[in-house]
């Protein structure tokens, strides 16, 4: 299995972050795992990496309900970034609001990146699929 160089986890809930990190480490899919407590921290770091020509995460785990900048606002900005490579974005949410699902379909059509949508919790056996390169 081809190792992914960098994964980003964006979630305000420390327990979820802990869980995802633990599963990723167990499966040893990535060298680096970056974590962010909200969309704003993440988008700012990614922009910074772009400027410095650093490698940006190839897979992103994204929560929707977050303070300051939520998942949708993050996506809105992210898809405008000049990223030629296809990034895999796994939306993870506990929401069952149909409006969120519609939002997903909207962004999915709008970008060349691969956007997936999963309800929490995720299981270890799902991680493999969710980290396969887009």
């Amino acid at each position, binding site marked *: 299995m081809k190792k992914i160089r960098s994964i980003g986890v964006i979630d305000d809930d420390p327990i979820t972050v802990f*869980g995802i990190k*633990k599963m990723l480490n167990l499966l040893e899919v990535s060298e680096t795992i970056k974590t962010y407590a909200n969309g704003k921290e993440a988008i700012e770091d990614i922009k910074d990496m772009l400027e410095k020509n650093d490698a940006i995460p190839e897979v992103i785990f994204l929560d929707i309900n977050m*303070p300051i900048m*939520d998942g949708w606002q993050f996506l809105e900005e992210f898809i405008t970034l000049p990223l030629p490579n296809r990034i895999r974005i796994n939306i993870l949410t*506990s*929401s*069952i*609001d149909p409006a969120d699902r519609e939002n997903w379909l909207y962004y999915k059509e709008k970008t060349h990146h691969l956007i997936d949508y999963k309800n*929490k919790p995720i299981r*270890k056996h799902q991680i493999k699929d969710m980290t396969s390169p887009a």
Partner: protein
Amino acid sequence: MLRETQTNTSNYLIKQLPKATAFIDKEFKVVHASDTWIDYFDFNSDQVIGKTIHKLFGKVNPEWQEALDNCIRGQQSAIEIERYFDSNNREKWFEWVNIPWYDEGENIIGVILQVEDVTKRINNELEHEKLQILLKEKSEIAKIGSWEYDAVADELTWSDMTKKIHGVPLSHKPDLANGIEFYKEGYSRNTISLAVHKAMVEGIPWTERLQLVKANGEEIWVIAAGKPLFKNKEFIGLIGTFQDINDSVISDLKTKENEKLLRTLIDNLPLNVFIKDTDSRKILANKSEVSFCGLEDESQIIGKTDFDFYDQVTARSSREEDLYVMQTLKPILSKETINVKKDGTVTTFMTSKLPLIGDDGKSNGLVGISWDISDIKQKEKELRDLINVTSLQNKQLINFAHIVSHNLRSHTANFSMLLEFLINEKDEEEKEKIINMLNEASDNLLETLENLNEVVAISTNVNLEKKPTFLYKKIQTVEQNLAAFLKKNNATLINNVPNDLQIMVIPAYIDSILMNFITNSVKYKDPKRDPVITLSINRNEQYTILSIEDNGLGIDLKKYGDKLFGMYKTFHHNSDARGIGLYISKNQIEAMNGKVMVCSEVDKGTTFNIYFNEKN
């Protein structure tokens, strides 16, 4: 000689006879002729004497010849009437008498011809006959019969038509008592008895509309007229007529009945009904319309237009509708119009206007039917408001359900995940870490449940009553309770609320709301300046508006506007931001039928306007 003189004398006498007379001998030669006779036939007076009548008249018809022959034999002929055309071709009628001419010895010596011009009489007779025929025709057509009562002989005569009207055979012989019995018992018979009596005694003629009962029992209406006849001031009889007017009376009654029915109908319709002429003047108005215009009688409305009852705008648009209907001949059906009366009363009508079309195909007015639907409109509006409120509440409920679901799910997802780790974990240290996290997740869940409970309590505590509350005092109390917090942050609170102002609120909620907004203003202060919070009051028709203005960080409403009052939404890097305060405050304000609005500018500050509903 003497004889000659005698002849001349008689000759002269005959010549002057006033009646046209001629004497002819047995050879039918004229011996004597009166001037009148010569004149009658336009003869030349010199050429008459000695000529035969055959020569004079050209031709003598056989009957006359026979009559003359009979005369000579001693038989006087009957009077004969002859038609004759004179030299001017005028029609003339003559009455002839041929008498035998005797001499002194009673010997027949010729014939005396006497002629009388009866043209006038004949014409009169013809005229009379014509009149008789006309009268008969007229009486047949107009169903007028006549009668005559001869008081002297106590004899009553009915014309054929009169008999027909009474339904009796032509052979019927009426008498006065029997005649009166044909009148319907009651009013009709009493009236005629009295009329006949009055005519006989006082000489007053009568004309009455009465009912007869025909021989077959059928009741009919007639005009009975009569007139007494007097001779030398003595009553000698009565003459009169009968006219059968049953058909017209029946149709009259029917028309009247229909009119009454129609009038009753339109007067009792729960609709305003009116008829307008081409100038939009009302020429009919039913009771509803009259009382709608604030009047008591239809006569007060007749001739008036909408300009007399409505304001200019309403009246003008009504006139435009009228013109449209009358010019196009197309009806306006069930049009909803808002009508403002002169006193300002507003009524919503569902109006139909239908053109009245005359024989010439043009409109000579219109019929209007208006239904006052103001009440229905009002109810409709209330219903719509209620639907709006309900659908809003429903939306909020669904939203809340999603919040609950999301918040509970996020914790249970964590439980599930952590438990899976725990089962498979070998490392003791890691196990302890996971257990600590499970504890944390459990605490979070409890807190979430508490928060949700708080929200549910607001929505379910509908029985909490609003009470008049002095707002100024409430702010003072909150200020005292927050004194330490305010002092620590160097915050200033300016209370511009009038100290006598009372608002209708649930006291517990107003405490919580004030506390929440004031704390927020301080929490999200701009680090570059000391916080200043100003509270002031505005009013509009329905609401008392409390403005809470601060000079804090401000919020980018473009980005966060729709989430500001959402649950668990925070917008600043602030460690104790829970994201529940504004959500609860908003719920409390809405539970008091109020609303909250916000305006804000980043780095300048934020103003929350809280609308307290004073009406409801």
